[in-house]
C-alpha cells in the first residue's frame, strides 16, 4: 500500500508547474509535467500511487483518456472511497479535501499535507502550489483506498471562510451582491440584471472574470475574488 509520504513527495515534485482550466492529463504517464487542473492533478497522483483510477470516468477505462472531475470525486468519495470530516482531512497527510461542484459553481479538490496545509493545482495565475485549507469552502474530506493514512481523533479544524456568495437555494440576496454585479458590469462582464440576487448569470460572469484574472474559477465570490473585483468585504 502507498504511504501518505510517498503521495506528498510525488505531488510536491510538481509544485510550480502550469495550471490550465479543463486540462486533460494522461494518468498513466509518470513523466507528465503539466498542464494540470485540480481534479486531473489529484487523480494523476492517486494513479501513480495505486495504479487505480479515482475520481475519473470511465472508472475502469484507459488511464490516459479517462476524465477526472470533482463531480466524479464526489461520487467516488461516497462509494469506493471514505468520507471524513473536513477537520480530519485537513489534519491528515494523504487525505483529500473536496468542494463539490454545484449549480453555477465549479468544484475543487486538493491533497492534504496535514496540519491544515495543502498541495493543489490551484489556478492559472498560481499553478500547482502548496497552500492552506483555512478560510476556504469545503464540503467533505476524502480517503482514497490504497493510500495508507493516519487520521487523528481530535483534529484542529480549518478556519471557516465567512461570507462566500454563490448560487444556492434560497438565492443569496443583498446590496453586496449588487456591488459585485456593478463591478462586473464596469469591468465588461455581464452579470445580468443588477437585482442583488446571486443567480446563475452572475455566477457565470464571476467565472469569466476569474478566468480572465487567473484566479480559481469556481463562480463564487469570497475574500480573494472580492479583492480582485475591488469590492469591500467582511472579515
Amino acid at each position: 500500500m502507498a504511504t501518505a509520504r510517498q503521495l506528498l513527495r510525488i505531488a510536491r515534485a510538481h509544485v510550480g508547474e502550469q495550471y490550465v482550466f479543463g486540462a486533460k492529463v494522461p494518468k498513466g504517464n509518470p513523466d507528465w509535467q503539466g498542464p494540470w487542473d485540480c481534479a486531473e492533478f489529484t487523480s494523476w497522483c492517486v494513479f501513480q500511487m495505486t495504479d487505480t483510477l479515482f475520481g475519473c470516468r470511465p472508472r475502469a477505462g484507459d488511464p490516459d483518456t479517462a476524465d477526472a472531475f470533482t463531480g466524479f470525486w464526489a461520487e467516488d468519495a461516497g462509494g469506493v472511497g471514505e468520507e471524513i470530516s473536513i477537520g480530519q482531512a485537513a489534519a491528515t497527510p494523504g487525505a483529500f479535501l473536496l468542494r463539490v461542484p454545484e449549480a453555477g459553481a465549479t468544484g475543487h479538490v486538493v491533497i492534504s499535507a496535514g496540519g491544515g496545509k495543502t498541495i493543489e493545482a490551484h489556478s492559472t495565475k498560481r499553478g500547482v502550489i502548496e497552500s492552506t485549507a483555512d478560510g476556504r469552502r469545503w464540503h467533505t474530506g476524502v480517503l482514497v483506498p490504497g493510500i495508507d493514512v493516519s487520521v487523528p481523533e481530535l483534529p484542529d479544524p480549518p478556519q471557516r471562510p465567512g461570507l462566500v456568495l454563490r448560487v444556492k437555494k434560497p438565492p443569496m440576496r443583498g446590496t453586496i451582491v449588487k456591488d459585485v454585479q456593478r463591478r462586473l458590469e464596469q469591468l465588461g462582464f455581464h452579470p445580468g440584471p443588477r437585482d442583488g440576487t446571486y443567480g446563475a448569470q452572475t455566477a457565470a460572469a464571476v467565472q469569466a472574470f476569474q478566468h480572465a484574472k487567473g484566479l480559481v474559477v469556481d463562480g463564487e465570490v469570497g475574500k480573494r475574488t472580492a479583492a480582485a473585483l475591488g469590492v469591500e468585504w467582511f472579515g
Partner: protein
Amino acid sequence: MADFKNVFRDAIAAAQEKLEAQAPGAQQFLRDVADAHKKSLASLLAAFADGKIDQPTLESELADEKLVFQGELLAVQAIAKKAAQDAANAFFDVIDKALVAGIGGLL
C-alpha cells in the same frame, strides 16, 4: 445590544454543557471547532448588520455553519450523534437569540 465576544463565549458554554456528561474529554475539541467558526460567524453577522445581506441569506448561511460545526463533532467517536446535535443546537441557539436583540462588536 450584546457584544459578540460575550455571545460567542456563552455559545461555547452552552455547547460544552451538552457534551459535559457524555464526552468530558472533548471539551477542548469543541472549543477548537467553535474557534474555527468565530471569524466566519462575525463576518456573516457584520454583513447582515451593515445591511449587505438580507435575513434569509444570513439564516441560510448560519444553517450551513451549523451543519459543518455538527459534522466536525460527529466525526469524533467519543461524541454520540445526539450529543453532537444537542451541542450544535445549543451553540447556534445562543447566536440566534442574540441576533434578535442585536449583536455589536463584530469586526
